């Protein structure tokens, strides 16, 4: 029962008292007060009470709302009236007004097709179709031939699509289609889909096809089946309630259902939130950067808590990839706040992902106002995520239009909480969404740079590339092992090394194990190249040379050779021998050593082809890198 609570909304201890004071409020203040009260953690009873107050005070939409009032007809094959209070409150939560059509359930065909119907007189601007499986699949026949099942599903889908088209041509309205709740008990079990005519399998097929057709027809979905997966069917559907009152959606799910409808209606008016403002300490990583330092904060592999924070960062990064703007609001010295973004190996979010970075010791409400101004967005477009209840509450108080979700104690559940709140509800992914993210922007800048640059050298020069090199380190061992074992194309010998093998190289003075990290003006590309050489009688044998293909075409290999030559000289070598072992995937580097000025050695009919470079005559190749040792 509690699984469908609106957990991201704060509990308001004085909620019931507030409800009583409405009589004392002026009409203009009442709406704002109602919106505030809708943004508390309401259950069935409080939702009903608030809806009652709303309808008492407002017979129609208040004037001067920033949102367009919606006339919504919810047409279903079972009882839907018990969901109306939830829908009105779900819209109220978003500063929206919804009028709901009071129809009779099961009358939807007449409602749509009969020009004299009450629905026609009422003139909806949005229709939500909510069909139950029992209605759609009436007369199903277990064990019928598979073809008959297919035809049955196709017929139902044709009927539904027909309704969409009729509704649209008669009313010119937006259409929302609820997917079908999977209410049927399974007959066959794990392989239910192999039993032709099994109703549970038919529902799955229906939902698949509803999704496909809705995309073609420009119909918005309410994915009730997904919610049933997330929360369990029993949270959403109670067969006892069905038999008692033909209510397919459980009455206790009404506040959540209404919120989902509310977020869809808001999204259709472009009122979904646009920007996620993030706190840093204990929100993006564990610990306090100012106290614990770069090595003390908890983030990344090897620690459950650190992985939980990484996972949250990944979710946030993915949000930015779909067009949500990211900003930071942290009480910190800016230098400290930036440190993990610049130096921590396990940061998934990069400075580049953050559209506006606010780190100061002022109060967060003021900082968020500044962020909104800088990004030129409204405060009602902002979601503020902070682990600290103190900060959450002050922002809620100062800026009630900013959405401030409750965050659970455990960061493992941060992403789920923000997702559940539905702040960033999307209807269709646009090209604009994609380009909004910094990642894409950076790539576009790289590409356009290539166009405008007169030639490759000046383009490479404009990238401000720095190659940081070092011998293998303990800290980067995992990444090194990963690169060695997954790089196939730019890999001269494709020799694999285990973690243990790599570990043995670290402190061996007769080995030259090099890792190279590339940083350019678009960000840190991480470790992108590895060379392993063995010193044998004044010769460095290049056992391994590999590079990530992401950084091809930048002449990284020229700079790497410079580094190798310098280190080889320091170790007392007078020549390099490069090894090439052909595989199915590494033909791109067949000429690698020749291009770098090595000479092929006579074939000794070994597996490796060998190339020699004499160090006394070596001349530095031109590169576009600043080379620094880490």
């Amino acid at each position, binding site marked *: *029962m509690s699984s469908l609570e609106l957990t991201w909304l704060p509990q308001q201890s004085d909620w019931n008292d507030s409800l009583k004071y409405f009589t004392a409020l002026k009409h203009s203040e009442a709406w704002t007060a109602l919106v505030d009260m809708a943004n508390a953690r309401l*259950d*069935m*009873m409080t939702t*009903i*009470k608030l809806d*009652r107050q709303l309808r008492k005070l407002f017979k129609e939409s208040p004037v001067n709302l920033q949102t367009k009032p919606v006339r919504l007809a919810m047409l279903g094959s079972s009882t839907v*009236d*018990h969901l109306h209070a939830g829908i009105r409150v779900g819209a109220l939560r978003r500063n929206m007004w919804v009028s709901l059509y009071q129809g009779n359930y099961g009358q939807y065909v007449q409602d749509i097709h009969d020009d004299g119907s009450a629905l026609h007189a009422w003139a909806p601007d949005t229709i939500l179709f909510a069909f139950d499986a029992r209605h759609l699949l009436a007369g199903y026949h277990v064990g019928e031939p598979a073809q008959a099942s297919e035809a049955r599903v196709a017929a139902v889908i044709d009927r539904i699509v027909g309704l969409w088209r009729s509704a649209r041509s008669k009313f010119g309205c937006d259409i929302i289609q609820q997917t079908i709740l999977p209410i049927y008990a399974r007959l066959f079990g794990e392989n239910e889909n192999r039993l032709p005519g099994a109703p549970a399998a038919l529902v799955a097929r229906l939902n698949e096809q509803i999704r496909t057709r809705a995309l073609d027809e420009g119909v918005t979905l309410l994915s009730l089946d997904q919610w049933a997966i997330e929360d369990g069917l029993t949270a959403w559907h109670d067969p*006892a*309630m069905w*038999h*008692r*009152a033909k*209510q397919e959606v459980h*009455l*206790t799910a009404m506040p959540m259902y209404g919120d989902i409808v509310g977020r869809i209606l808001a999204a259709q008016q472009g009122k979904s939130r646009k920007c996620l403002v993030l706190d840093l300490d204990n929100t993006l990583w564990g610990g306090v950067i100012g106290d614990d330092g770069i090595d003390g904060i908890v983030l990344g592999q090897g620690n459950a808590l650190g992985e939980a924070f990484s996972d949250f960062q990944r979710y946030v990064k993915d949000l930015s990839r779909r067009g949500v703007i990211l900003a930071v609001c942290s009480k910190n010295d800016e230098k400290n706040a930036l440190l993990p973004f610049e130096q921590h190996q396990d940061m998934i979010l990069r400075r580049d992902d953050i559209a506006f970075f606010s780190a100061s010791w002022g109060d967060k409400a003021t900082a968020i106002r500044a962020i909104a101004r800088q990004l030129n967005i409204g405060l009602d477009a902002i979601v503020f995520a902070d682990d600290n209840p103190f900060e959450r509450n002050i922002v809620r108080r100062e800026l009630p239009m900013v959405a401030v979700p409750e965050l659970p104690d455990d960061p493992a559940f941060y992403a789920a909480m923000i997702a559940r709140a539905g702040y960033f509800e999307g209807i269709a992914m646009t090209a604009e969404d994609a380009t909004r993210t910094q990642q894409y922007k950076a790539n576009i800048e790289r590409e356009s740079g290539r166009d405008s640059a007169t030639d490759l050298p000046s383009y490479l020069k404009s990238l401000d590339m720095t190659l940081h090199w070092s011998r293998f380190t303990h800290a980067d061992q995992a990444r090194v092992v990963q690169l060695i074992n997954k790089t196939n194309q730019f890999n001269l010998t494709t020799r694999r090394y285990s973690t243990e093998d790599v570990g043995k190289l670290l402190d061996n003075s007769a080995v030259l194990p090099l890792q190279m990290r590339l940083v350019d003006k678009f960000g840190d590309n991480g470790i992108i190249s590895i060379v392993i050489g063995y010193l044998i009688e004044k010769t460095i044998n290049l056992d391994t040379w590999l590079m990530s293909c992401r950084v091809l075409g930048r002449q990284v290999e020229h700079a790497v050779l410079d580094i190798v030559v310098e280190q080889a000289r320091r170790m007392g070598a007078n020549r390099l021998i490069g090894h090439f072992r052909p595989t199915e995937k590494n033909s791109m580097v067949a000429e690698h050593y020749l291009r770098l000025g090595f000479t092929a050695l006579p074939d000794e009919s070994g597996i490796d082809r060998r190339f020699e470079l004499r160090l006394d005559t070596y001349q530095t190749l031109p590169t576009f890198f600043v080379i620094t040792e880490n």
Partner: protein
Amino acid sequence: MTEADVLLKLEEIFRDLFDLPDLQLDVSMSADDIDEWDSVNHVMLVVQIEREFKIKFHTAEVEEMKNVGDLLKLVVGKLNTATLR
């Protein structure tokens, strides 16, 4: 929880749900005595009682609830069974 306690709590639920702040609940009352107690609200009433007392009614029991007395007896009975367990 005594029978009187349960009745008091039921009264609170009736008041909240039907928006009748002054309602005095009596065991003899039935849906005929309270206008707001229609079939739609009855469903809500049952769900809210289940939530408040953390009990679950049998489908057959819901059919049998004709008046406040029936309701009270059912709730008290379920609470007692729960305690015995």
